[in-house]
């Protein structure tokens, strides 16, 4: 188990290094000189020179890369050119919106999808299955940001149960903050849960055809007992993969949903940074998102090993 974890950890480290190289290459090498790019065509030569030295552009590319990475490891993400504040602090503030939103949505999506998928699989071909499958077919087809707009229309504008947007901050009380994240989380979660429910169902149906399920029935387990005791854990393996991938979608998708609800999360930050050509902020946020995806994959790999003893045995 430890060996397996170490191996995954090594692979995590390699992925991070390569991903950071890619991001560095795109942001700091592709546009030519980042300083003049950020300042635009009409910038004064001395302003450009000042920014160059501020960004540390007067050293070699390799050195710049190492400085960037070294800074991030220490928690120093550089200073935003437009806001004149440390990028690390800005990101940390925004993460308190984006991360809870993604986790909230992930929890909702799982809570909805598991029962729906198990229910449909247990009633394969019957009206219950058809209904769930029909609903998921529709759920998969709905763009989450449009769904978000419809939720606003119904629950905020017409029914007035929720506010149409904005975020009071966690200091104003946990439940209030959670409430303002509820509509966005539902908008994110429902389409994802449709996908997850379909995967859960088909994965369970695959397992139901396995020989060991017949062995379980031959022991005297009822259909339902066999499904719960032997089917579920085996079916979980493909489902975990999807949950891992979904977290990436939820974090990225959250960026779009934040626009609908005017939430002060990473999404707002990055779009402002793009229009202000604040490459330092863009670079850091992108690296953070990619880091999150890679980290979640690592966790999913570990979860595999917890579920499947065959993986623990292999290195």
């Amino acid at each position, binding site marked *: 188990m430890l060996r397996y974890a170490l191996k995954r950890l090594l692979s995590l480290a390699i992925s991070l290094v390569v991903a950071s190289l890619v991001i560095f290459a795109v942001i700091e090498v592709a546009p030519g000189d980042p300083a003049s790019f950020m300042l635009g065509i009409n910038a004064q030569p001395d302003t450009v020179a000042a920014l160059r030295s501020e960004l540390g552009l007067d050293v070699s590319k390799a050195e710049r890369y190492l400085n960037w990475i070294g800074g991030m490891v220490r928690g120093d993400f550089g200073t935003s050119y437009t806001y004149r504040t440390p990028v690390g602090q800005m990101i940390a503030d925004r993460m308190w919106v984006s991360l809870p939103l993604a986790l909230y949505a992930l929890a909702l999506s799982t809570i909805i999808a598991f029962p729906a998928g198990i229910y449909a699989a247990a009633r394969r071909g019957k009206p219950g299955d058809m209904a769930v499958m029909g609903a998921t077919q529709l759920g998969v087809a709905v763009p989450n940001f449009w769904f978000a707009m419809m939720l606003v229309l119904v629950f905020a504008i017409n029914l007035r149960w929720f506010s149409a947007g904005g975020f009071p901050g966690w200091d104003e009380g946990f439940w209030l903050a959670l409430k303002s994240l509820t509509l966005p989380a539902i908008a994110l979660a429902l389409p994802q849960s449709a996908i997850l429910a379909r995967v859960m169902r088909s994965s369970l149906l695959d397992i139901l055809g396995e020989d060991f399920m017949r*062995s379980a*029935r031959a022991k*005297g387990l009822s259909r339902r007992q066999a499904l719960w005791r032997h089917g579920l854990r085996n079916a979980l393996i493909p489902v975990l993969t999807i949950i891992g991938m979904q977290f990436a979608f939820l974090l990225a998708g959250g960026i779009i949903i934040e626009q609908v609800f005017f939430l002060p999360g990473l999404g707002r930050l990055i779009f402002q940074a793009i229009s202000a050509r604040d490459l330092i902020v863009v670079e850091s946020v992108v690296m953070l998102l990619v880091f999150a995806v890679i980290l979640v994959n690592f966790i999913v790999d570990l979860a595999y090993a917890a579920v*499947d003893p065959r993986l623990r045995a292999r*290195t």
Partner: protein
Amino acid sequence: MTLLRIEDLSLSIGPHKILKNVSFSIAPGEIVAVTGESGSGKSMTALATMQLLPESAETKGAILLGDLDLLAQTEPQLCAMRGKDMGMVFQEPMTALNPVKTIGDQVMETIQIHTTMTRAQAEEQAREMLTRVGLPTDRFPLSRYPHELSGGQRQRVVIAMAIALRPRLLIADEPTTALDVTTQAQILDLLKELVVEFGMGLMMITHDLAVVSEMADRIVVMRHGEIVEQGKTRALFEEMKHPYTRALFEASGHQVNLPERAEVPEPILEVRNAVRDYVLPRTQLFAPRQYHRAVNEISFTIHHGERVGLVGESGCGKSTLTRAILGLEPLQSGSITAFGQEVGPGQNPALRSGLQVVFQDPYGSFNPRHKVARIITEPFHLMPDPPTGEARDRAIAEALVAVGLQPSDAGKYIHEFSGGQRQRIAIARALIIRPELIIFDEAVSALDVSIRAQILDLIADLSRSHNLSYLFISHDLSVVRTVTDRVLVMKAGEIVEQGETQEVFSNPQHSYTQTLINAAPVLPIVGQGAA
């Protein structure tokens, strides 16, 4: 007194009639074998008895266990009986166990769902049962996972699961078909002992008449969902009233009429000290690479006109050796020479045309999207100047006729053919460029006995008409014995014995060969059947 009585059982799934008026009974302590070829309905009879049929199945008649009609029981009642009153062992031990649960948990589950035993008591009983089936818990702790065990060991776990509560009836559906002969013998012995010890009735489903004859007290022979004959084992083999029983018996022990060997001492295949290693996955992150030696210093020669057999159990390296001879995999040392040219992945394809192969799986051997003509002419790729137009059509027709098919079959797709016909097509593909040596890699292993007999006859005929040499690779000793002149016995990557086939079989020198021959079940020698 009977334990199980099946009366007039008929079963249909949709429009298909699977079983027709099946009736037989099993007494306590009795072993009844249900035998027949694929499609005979023998497995469905077993599943019907367990009431584990597909939902769309409709049954008529009665299945009485004691005096309870299983067909009249509700599903919860059946659940209470399965595992407690009747247990079942399946064919595929590799997949019959849940991969994510320990063997202890899986055996204990049978106990815990039917009794009120505490966990400790159940654990004690599971330990007892596993020890009884030959997995003593000091060497095989309850915390083992299925993937840590071999096929034979897993089958023992499945048996322990099935008998944990000493059911009155045990059903075994081809319990040894997926196992090697030596393992098969052990599992069959175990089942026999358990029947005596527990006084269980055993319904044994198998296609193998030799196994049947050694195991069963009584035999039920089935074909197309009907019982054609049943009776006491000895009496049934003595009399064989029904022609199908006789045909089945004849096909099981089929002897081909192999033409005299045309001894020309000209070597066509020479294997010299061949070594093939596989890299194993690293067990530690920075440990040096470990190798598995699949083929270890093997040497042998096949001369023109010779028919050589290669026998060995699974994992002995015979498939690896085949691939190396076909030039699909490199050797680490040694050499393989065919027709005077060294074989290897970089070899000139034209030089390979003297050597062709027929594989085991009649279903996986063909591209499902191609027609027969395209499939069997694929080896033409090896020729510098392949025939075209009429010459090509003539070659196709000739090859198809040679294997007993029609020239018009060339325009059909592969799914239009049965398993036996597909194996004929595979042979036609090997024959079409008139090779001197064909490798038959378990080429009859997936076939029913009657089809197998026909294909073996075809191979003998071709050896006569085409003056073929071949290397016949099989795990089945009886088949190798009839179609080869010389035999090589392979174990753990090495050839432990070789010699004239009849000599090796009647007077085996190496202990492994002796074990193999002793373990292989044999058909009884009986009056009418032998005639």
